[in-house]
Structures are given as C-alpha cells and as structure tokens.
C-alpha cells in the first residue's frame, strides 16, 4: 500500500520538527481539501501549493527549502499524476463454469470490498453486480472468468471484469434499452448492474465473445 501521507511527513520532518511537520501537513490537507492517500488528477498541484506555503514559512534555510520542495514535487507527481492508473494491483481470477461458481465469485468480491473498507451497502452492491455478471456467463456462454482487481490509483475502488468466449451479444443497444426484456432476464440484470456501478463498459462480438468491465469507487 502506498501511504503518501506518511511519505510527506517524512520529507517535512527532514527540515522541521515532527510536531511542526504534522501541523503543516494537516493544514495543507484542510486548505487544499485533498486526501494525499487518494490523489486524483490535479489534486497533487493543489496540495503542493499549500505544502509550499508551509515550507516557505517554517524552513529558514533556502537550500533546505529547495530540497524539501523538490522531494515533495517528485513524490506527489509520481503518486498523483504520471503514475498510471490502475497500477498492476492484486488481482483475483475466478473461473466461472457452473452455477455454483456464481456464489463463489460474489462471495470473493464481497470479501475484497470488505478488506478495502467499503461500506456494507457498497459490498452488497458489488457482490450483486458480480452475481449478475457471473450468471450471464453461465447462462449464455457456459464458460468464462471473473477478474476482480483492486484499484489503488487516483481513486480507490474495485474493478470487475467478466470475460467469456461465448456467442456474444448481437445488439448491445437493444439489450441495454428499456424495451428489452428477455425471457431469462438478461436485460434486467445488465441494466441493474449498470445502475449499481459507477462505470460500466460492455464489449461484445460473435468472434471474441463478451467482455463487461465495471467499476465501483470508494467515495
């Protein structure tokens, strides 16, 4: 896990007292309204501006000021900006072959969410979405996998990819429209999943099967 907060503190402590370093950090956070451990695009700059104010104020020595700022810049740009997202994070692959794998997949998904600190409501939402996606595989493709990835980049969250090499969905727009109501309820399941998640991306064609990628973020 990357604890940017701690890293910032370490840099600050290099040129000021620990108490002062903590104060500077907490003030910078409250002024910039940025959580260092949850940096999004553009956040790094705002946090940096506030940190710089603190460093200017409390670090007397010019050279020390410069080094401190440089260290801070490189830390934050790596964590907030240039750093690719999502990074290769812990990933769990669950093969989906039989209907009992559906229960396993959603159980695992819920466990991951729990470990990430998702609220109870969010855990259930993600588990429900995984259940829908896994059932889709069992019912329409017969064989596939669910890949659960922890997102620890700009936004903390979880990504679920459902992949199969089945017949594919001929008319995605129709399936996802309000008119569609399959006998088995595929439309309802997918639409419901889209409503539950923050991001929903469906790719399908007869040659490669179907890939559904959904994401849910922590905030």
């Amino acid at each position: 896990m990357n604890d940017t907060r701690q890293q910032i503190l370490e840099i600050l402590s290099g040129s000021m007292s620990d108490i002062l370093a903590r104060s500077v950090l907490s003030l910078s956070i409250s002024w910039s309204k940025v959580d260092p451990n949850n940096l999004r695009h553009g956040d790094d700059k705002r946090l940096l501006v506030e940190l710089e104010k603190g460093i200017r104020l409390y670090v007397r020595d010019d050279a020390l000021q410069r080094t401190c700022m440089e260290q801070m810049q490189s830390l934050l740009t790596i964590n907030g900006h240039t750093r690719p997202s999502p990074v290769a994070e812990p990933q769990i692959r669950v093969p989906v072959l039989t209907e009992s794998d559906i229960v396993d997949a959603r159980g695992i998904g819920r466990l991951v969410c729990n470990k990430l600190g998702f609220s109870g409501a969010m855990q259930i939402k993600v588990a429900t979405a995984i259940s829908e996606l896994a059932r889709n595989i069992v019912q329409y493709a017969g064989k596939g996998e669910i890949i659960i990835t922890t997102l620890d980049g700009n936004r903390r969250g979880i990504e679920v990819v459902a992949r199969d090499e089945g017949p594919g969905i001929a008319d995605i727009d129709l399936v996802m429209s309000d008119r569609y109501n399959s006998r088995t309820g595929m439309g309802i399941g997918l639409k419901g999943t889209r409503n539950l998640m923050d991001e929903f991306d469906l790719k399908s064609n007869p040659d490669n099967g179907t890939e559904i990628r959904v994401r849910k973020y922590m905030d």
Partner: protein
Amino acid sequence: MAERSDTFRIPIIKLHDKLIVSIQMALSDRLVMQLKDDITTRIERVNITGLIIDVSGIDVMDSYISRALRDMGLIARLMGVRTVISGLDPMIAMTLVEMGLDLKGVSSALNLETAIELLDRKPAKTRGKGGTV
C-alpha cells in the same frame, strides 16, 4: 460447494396454517430452483393459507433471485396462498431499488412475527367498491 448444493435443501417448516421458509445461506441458482419446486409440492400436499419466506440470512439478491422469489409468491397466490417476505436486509433492499427491481405481488414484513400477524388478518378488501371476503 457444488456437491453440497446438489444434496442440500432449504428446510420448509409447517406452522399451523402457514409454511415458513427460512433462508440462512448464500443462494445458488440450483437451491433457488429446488426451493421453488419444494414449495409448490408442499403447498399442494398440505392445507395452508400463508407462506412466509424469511430472507434475513441471504447474502445477495440479484435479478435472478429476486425474480425467483417473486415467482414463488405469484405461484403461491395462484394456488390460494398469500406470501410474505420478511427480514430483508436494508442494504439489500436499497440495492434492489437501485437496480430497478421489485418484489411486486409479494408483501414485505419487518420480521417473522409481523409476517405472521399480517397473514392472520382478514384477506384484503377490494379497494374502492368495498367488496369483502
């Protein structure tokens, strides 16, 4: 897991004139289908007027499970039995609503006790005309 769900069944208890089903586990599709069959068979065999499905132990309710529960209620109604679902987790209720799912045709109760109370009332009045049982 697969083996267990092959042999395992959800118990259905008869209490006076009601059937009580208490789901205390993660539902696999097979278990759901099995339950649907079992309930239908039991309704046919025993003389009851109400069915209570307690879902307080359910882990997740996706479109398939919610639809199956609704189907069970509708089937039971066709056979003259009223169905009440009790003990739904608030977070699951929220998830259902956000997905755009409902349990139309089936009543809800906060707990087993109120579910029994609800079934013990006189059957519904028809709205408007005041027609009674």
